[in-house]
């Protein structure tokens, strides 16, 4: 079980070891993903059907919003194209994260049935293995749907574009994916203790992206505070997207917070990495 990096003073040597472990992890991730891609594409018809299914299922979220707008002109003071921007950013970030890391919520099941042991004896970082496990290319359906809504928002919105706003768009999708990813990993680490509580994770991940699809003015102040300061999901779409839209921020936050997402994402990953290590170290096999 020495595969888990041993704690110790941060010397040049351990820092180097950490870096090489990271490279090794990414390489292993790539290899496992490639394996699952080959297996997925062996059943083309099934792949096409499940991808379309994924597209439709997430599409229903936006259909619901459109049905709402068949009755009203604004929701919480926001128009349909404005909500489409919030939706597009949040759903693209979530879709990207779900494609790359969505499988980590299976950790609880692996703890339960004991198959995690197999991953521990391999000379590859466990996180890379569980992240790539059953890599589901069909999740492209979700991203496609999200990008279409984002495209619709960008075409219909009347925004005074500045170079800063343009640059902020890809940054918020990528940092948003990273923030969601940290939530996924922290949630997976929680499974080492809770085992069959993967639904708690769904509340933060799927629940989080649903929340961000609506403007903050819809929700109670305490809820907005919670997703800004405790689980910083507000940095995925609300704060940067409201800057692009030229809208007021919730909670009277200063304007520069719109540029914090990369920093917040980095901080979240440091915390998630620590939680993951603690969780993995506490793992006791079920035996046979």
């Amino acid at each position: 079980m020495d595969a888990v990096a041993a704690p110790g003073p941060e010397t040049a040597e351990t820092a180097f070891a950490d870096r090489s472990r990271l490279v090794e992890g990414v390489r292993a991730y790539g290899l496992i993903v490639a394996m699952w891609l080959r297996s997925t594409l062996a059943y083309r018809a099934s792949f096409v059907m499940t991808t379309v299914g994924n597209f439709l299922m997430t599409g229903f979220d936006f259909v619901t919003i459109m049905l709402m707008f068949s009755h009203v002109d604004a929701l919480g003071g926001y128009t349909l194209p404005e909500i489409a921007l919030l939706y597009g950013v949040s759903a693209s970030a979530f879709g990207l994260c779900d494609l790359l890391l969505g499988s980590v919520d299976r950790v609880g099941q692996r703890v339960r049935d004991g198959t995690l042991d197999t991953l521990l004896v391999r000379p590859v970082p466990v996180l890379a293995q569980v992240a790539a496990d059953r890599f589901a290319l069909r999740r492209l359906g979700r991203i496609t749907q999200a990008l279409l809504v984002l495209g619709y928002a960008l075409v219909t919105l009347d925004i005074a574009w500045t170079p800063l706003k343009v640059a902020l768009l890809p940054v918020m999708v990528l940092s948003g994916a990273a923030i969601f990813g940290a939530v996924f990993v922290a949630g997976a680490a929680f499974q080492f203790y809770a085992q069959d509580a993967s639904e708690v994770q769904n509340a933060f991940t799927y629940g989080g992206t649903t929340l961000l699809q609506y403007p903050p003015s819809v929700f109670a102040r305490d809820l907005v505070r919670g997703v800004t300061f405790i689980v910083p999901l507000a940095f995925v779409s609300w704060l940067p997207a409201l800057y692009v839209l030229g809208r007021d921020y919730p909670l009277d936050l200063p304007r520069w917070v719109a540029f914090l997402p990369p920093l917040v994402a980095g901080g979240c990953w440091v915390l998630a990495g620590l939680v993951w290590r603690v969780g993995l170290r506490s793992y006791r096999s079920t035996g046979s």
Partner: protein
Amino acid sequence: MRLYAVVAAGGFRRYATYRTATLAGVFTNTVFGFIVAYTYLALWDERPQLGGYDQSEALTYVWLGQALLMTCAMMGAGFESELTERIRTGDIAVDLYRPADLQLWWLAGDLGRAAFHLLGRGVAPMVLGALAFDLALPDSPWMWPAFLVSVLLGVVVSFALRFLVALSAFWLMDGAGALQMAMLAGLFFSGMLLPLTLFPGVLGEVARALPWSSLLQVPADVFLGRYTGWGLLGAYAFQAGWALVLLLAGRLLQSVATRRVVVQGG
């Protein structure tokens, strides 16, 4: 009859063993309940009386949806993936050999599952929702049993639909695609995303006439006192009618399918 009661009790106990998962599910249902409730508040702020509901009735609808999501299996997650798996692997031959009716056997188990989910994952979110929001709870104590009858009929319709979809595995071999499509239909046409009374024009009329409306829209309307007297009987008749038609269709498909079963020796 005794046999099916035992199977139903088994279904109940089986889900009752997942205590942590049930708690986690209650947590998730509650979080989603809050998120959707706030979006409905914003919607009904703009348009009071939208779809024939006032604000507290709309909020009640949200929490009923969370409470019945697992009970009426609007997104699936009942016996159906197990049944398709048994068809795919051929284990179904063993089931057909049993001195019990295939459809009734799975129905009994699913009723047990639904009963557990109503208690385990239905009551707590509803209570939490009622504490946080001003819900429109029934005035008359008789509305509670009337609501439960409608939920029971909804579970049977839900079962009959999923049984039909699962049997398609006899022809498709891999039932995953069909199950996913059924789940999509269930999510959209049950009224889980938005009350069917808000669906515009023909889409709304068709959605309200389809069997999936028995899963949430009809029980919720019974709970909200939309049906009384003969109207209530009419609502029950709508649900029971779909249940009967779909169960009979399942029975027909079952007899066609079982004639196709070829048991490989070995």
